[in-house]
């Protein structure tokens, strides 16, 4: 009796499990270095808002003080500039959010003739250099004899933040479950009622994110505002025109407060969105 020796099945050599623990650790350290680099100027801005400035230039550390927080609104020019920035940001955010939300719903929900053109215009609005937008608007307003001021700044801010709202809302609309809206209609809701009671609450995280983005872009905008402002000075414009003579520490304080407010709002919105699953 012969035993047939079946050769053991040829085991393919297991592919080497690639690993690079050291590489990962290097990348981790590198990522944090870049984050530190990105945050370095912010840290300097915050720190020097607490500096006991002596003389005109806030460029050397002289000790800790809260004086500038107590006297943050003492410089009337700077305070007026901050007010102007806030008025412009609120007005342009409201308009841009309303128009951008409708646009985003239309682009996310419907396929229609002309959506290619509209995509293209929005893409162009996002990718045209700001300085060209500013220059175009100046040429436009000069031709029409529109005096430069609040109106022209708000028009410009709505124009460039509109697309950002539309893009944000559109991506939210694309994730929606349409059957919920159909159910609302089946239960007798009108088109308007469905929009206000069903669609809008579902896309609300996208709308608030878009509004926050519009607000942040508006309050921070320099280039287009510089062109369309006329005699109005916003916060960034005031900083720009005063930087040659040294900036007062109140600028650091206001910058820090805007920073803190923005971060808190963004975190709040992110947490609200997390608690409300899509």
């Amino acid at each position, binding site marked *: 009796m012969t035993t047939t020796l079946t050769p053991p099945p040829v085991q393919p050599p297991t592919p080497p499990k690639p690993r690079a623990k050291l590489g990962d650790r290097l990348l981790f350290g590198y990522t944090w270095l870049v984050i530190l680099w990105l945050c370095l100027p912010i840290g300097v801005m915050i720190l020097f808002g607490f500096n006991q400035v002596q003389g005109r230039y806030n460029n050397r550390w002289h000790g800790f003080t809260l004086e500038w927080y107590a006297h943050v609104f003492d410089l009337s020019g700077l305070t007026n500039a901050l007010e102007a920035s806030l008025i412009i940001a609120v007005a342009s955010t409201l308009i841009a959010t309303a128009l951008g939300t409708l646009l985003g719903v239309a682009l996310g929900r419907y396929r229609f003739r*002309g959506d290619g053109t509209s995509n293209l215009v929005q893409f162009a609005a996002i990718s045209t250099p700001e300085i060209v937008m500013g220059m175009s608007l100046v040429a436009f307003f000069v031709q029409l004899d529109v005096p430069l001021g609040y109106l022209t700044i708000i028009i410009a801010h709505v124009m460039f933040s509109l697309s950002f709202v539309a893009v944000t809302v559109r991506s939210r609309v694309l994730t929606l479950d349409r059957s919920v809206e159909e159910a609302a209609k089946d239960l007798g809701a009108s088109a308007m009622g469905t929009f206000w009671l069903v669609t809008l609450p579902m896309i609300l995280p996208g709308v608030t994110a878009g509004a926050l983005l519009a607000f942040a872009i508006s309050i921070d905008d320099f280039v287009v505002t510089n062109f369309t402002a006329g005699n109005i000075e916003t916060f960034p414009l005031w900083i720009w025109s005063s930087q040659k003579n040294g900036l007062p520490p109140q600028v650091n304080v206001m910058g820090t407060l805007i920073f803190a407010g923005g971060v808190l709002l963004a975190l709040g919105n992110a947490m609200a969105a997390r608690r409300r699953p899509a």
Partner: protein
Amino acid sequence: MGSLRARFTPYALMLPGGLWLAIFFVIPTLILLQFSLMTGNEADGYQFTFHWQNYSDALSTYYPQFIRSLEYGGTATVLGIALSYPVAYWIAFKGGARKSTYLFLILLPFFVSFVLRTISWQFLLSDNGMVLGPLKDAGLLPPDFHILQTSVAVVGGLTYNYLPFMVLPIYVALERVDPGVVEASYDLYSSRTQSFLKVIFPLSLPGVFAGVLMNFVPAASDYVNAEVLGGPDNTMIGNIIQDQALTVRDYPTATALSATLMLALLVGIFAYARALGTETVLQAAAR
């Protein structure tokens, strides 16, 4: 009735926003082109005379600034890719549950005004400031060493200011890479390097291209960094346009320069989009 209404709904929704963009973006762009062919000045008014000389005059006077803008913008963009890619890679593949935290940290600079951030760098890099001062005191640098007023400072500022716009699109592209595809390349005996070069990197290219757009366009047309961090030898085309438009008030020259800048960038973008397929660029840019 219902279907007719349904057909018009998207147009009705788009109308207000679309009109706003048409009136305040498309028309002003056309007026910019028209203005660039006009003659005249603020006091006497302007006439449309097909004055192509505006372009040749502007270009022959300011071509060094044009070239410099493309150089600075290009260098900042390339540096941006090199600095951002590893960060985007690490967040996308190793960020785990903390991905959004890392992205948030990358975006933190946007909560501070762009002008203020740039002035902060001017302060940090000043000749005897926080960075250079101690190095000079320690004798590591000669006392007359300076970074401000050089191209290094301007390009550094540009790279810094637009870096988040490079990290984000690359991250989005990497995040969408199917882990199964990478796994498959390992099963087919590729090394880590090979699967990066042949699988992951090509899949991330749309993100890199979007990042290039979002960095090169604003960097090449910037004037804040050159003004705050640079010196008289570092002026870019943006500085000239700003000066011509807001100080000299020579609108024909300013508009001709703007139109040239816009056309140069548009031609570049469309060549890019063609080479890549428009849809991918639009998608990547939309994120």
